[in-house]
């Protein structure tokens, strides 16, 4: 495997894994096959160290979540953002940035503004224009409530508060009973 840093030559080439400028041009020779990669320093490092990773562009997401860092924010802003926690699933923005995966559908609402620059960066857009569920957009609030209640349920069971647990179970059953998925 050979990696070359020749940033001066290809100013306009973008990294294959994120949209930063590609300064590493790697030719991976295994057997007689040739694999050419054009990467920014960060992705190149991760590629060379780990031999890259898995299916659906997790590298993109990793890099992308790290990219959030320099979004014209002061260290204080960032610390505040990192500490923000979704009231439904409990994931913090810091955890999202580290893993590149969100915790629940409500995160898209709760972290809405924080995710916006990232969506624009990745997709060049922030508005879905494709398919919609046939039966329209159902009452997501009660669905989200179910996520919260199930989490709460787990917590009270761990605290051995069985009275509270049975109350929550009734609430869950009620929502499930009237929910659209219960037809």
């Amino acid at each position, binding site marked *: 495997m050979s990696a070359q840093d020749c940033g001066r030559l290809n100013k306009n*080439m*973008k990294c*294959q894994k994120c949209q930063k400028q590609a300064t590493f041009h790697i030719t991976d020779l*295994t*057997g*007689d*096959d*040739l*694999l*050419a990669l*054009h990467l920014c320093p960060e992705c190149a490092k991760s590629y060379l160290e780990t*031999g*890259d990773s*898995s*299916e*659906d*562009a*997790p*590298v*993109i*997401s990793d890099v992308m979540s790290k990219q959030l860092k320099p979004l014209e924010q002061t260290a204080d802003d960032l610390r505040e953002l990192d500490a923000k926690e979704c009231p439904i*699933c*409990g*994931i913090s923005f810091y955890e999202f940035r580290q893993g590149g*995966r*969100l*915790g*629940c*559908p409500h995160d*898209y*609402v709760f972290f809405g503004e924080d*995710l916006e620059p990232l*969506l624009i960066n*990745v*997709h*060049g*857009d*922030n*508005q*879905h*224009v*494709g*398919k*919609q*569920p*046939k*039966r329209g957009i*159902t009452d*997501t609030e009660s*669905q*989200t409530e*179910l*996520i919260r209640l*199930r*989490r709460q349920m*787990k917590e009270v069971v761990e605290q051995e508060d069985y009275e509270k647990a049975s109350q929550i179970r009734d609430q869950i059953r009620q929502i*499930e009973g009237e*929910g*659209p*998925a219960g037809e």
Partner: protein
Amino acid sequence: MILDEMANRCGEWLKGCGPESDIVMSSRIRLARNLADYPFIRRCTDIDRANIESTVRERLTNKAELKDLTFIDVADLQTLDRQFLVERQLISREHANSDGARAVAIDQQERLSLMVNEEDHLRIQVMKSGLDLVGAWGQINDLDDRIESQLTYAFHPKLGYLTACPTNVGTGMRVSVLVHLPALVITQQIEKVFRSLQKINLVVRGLYGEGTQAMGDFYQVSNQITLGKSENDLIDQVGDVIPVVIDYERKARDFLINEKQNDLFEQVSRAYGTLQNAQQISSEETMFLLSRVRMGINLGLIGDLEIPEVNQLFIRTQPAHLQKLRDSELDTDERNVERANYLHSQLKLDGGAEASNN
């Protein structure tokens, strides 16, 4: 057991039929979907995962029109069987290697696969032989509708289908075409093709997803963006560029035939000869040589072997398939011997035309 039957069958994407099938192996579309009333996978408890799995299984198998799907409990499978499903492209490596309740539903023809509890709650996939994205979209759109009538998806009016990773949000759709480009590799033009594809926001990967080597000169071309374009736009984005790639590959093949005929015949014929006569052979070398042979058949240099047979060999010489067909666990050295034996039995020298029709 169902997996043992499958080992002797041929999945849809290996059939070697459909438009442009000399260069396009298969067309694939996958949709990422999540249930609205559960957290995404990384925040799921074991109970959540088990509930998702059983809910999906119950809702879908109760439905008459989804009865042709067979559910396989992936958590319950041996490592070898999971690897076998990866090799057939029915589950991802991540799905095979992760933990907790998870499943895959597939149909008899292996055209559909529905992974439960992968990175998203549902990963729906449709595969077609050759270049047929429109056909694939028709099937997956219909399947998605039928699933949606039974389950409530996480959907946001502005952002579309909500996914665990924001790189998939919106349509949740990945359109992939698997192309065989040996002549572009030999003529060292593949890099140039990659670059032009990246410029238009397309991703190129090896046969088994990102990070895998481009084994056997197979490359997957797919869309990167999922938000802000309709499903049909995304299909066009990939579908419009594939004929251009095909054209490059054909031109490169013409060049090899016209300008490098002796070298080409030598390579194809040696590849065929090695596959027929090797005493032990690695998976990588097999893929490399099969790629040459596959091109040789398409160029009329090999007359006694058909494309579907070669396509099968690509898969059946993979580690898990070899062990399933042999019905025993084999270490690397044993597999290399078994692989050579298998190739020998499939590519018997019966005095037929070798790569020397000139």
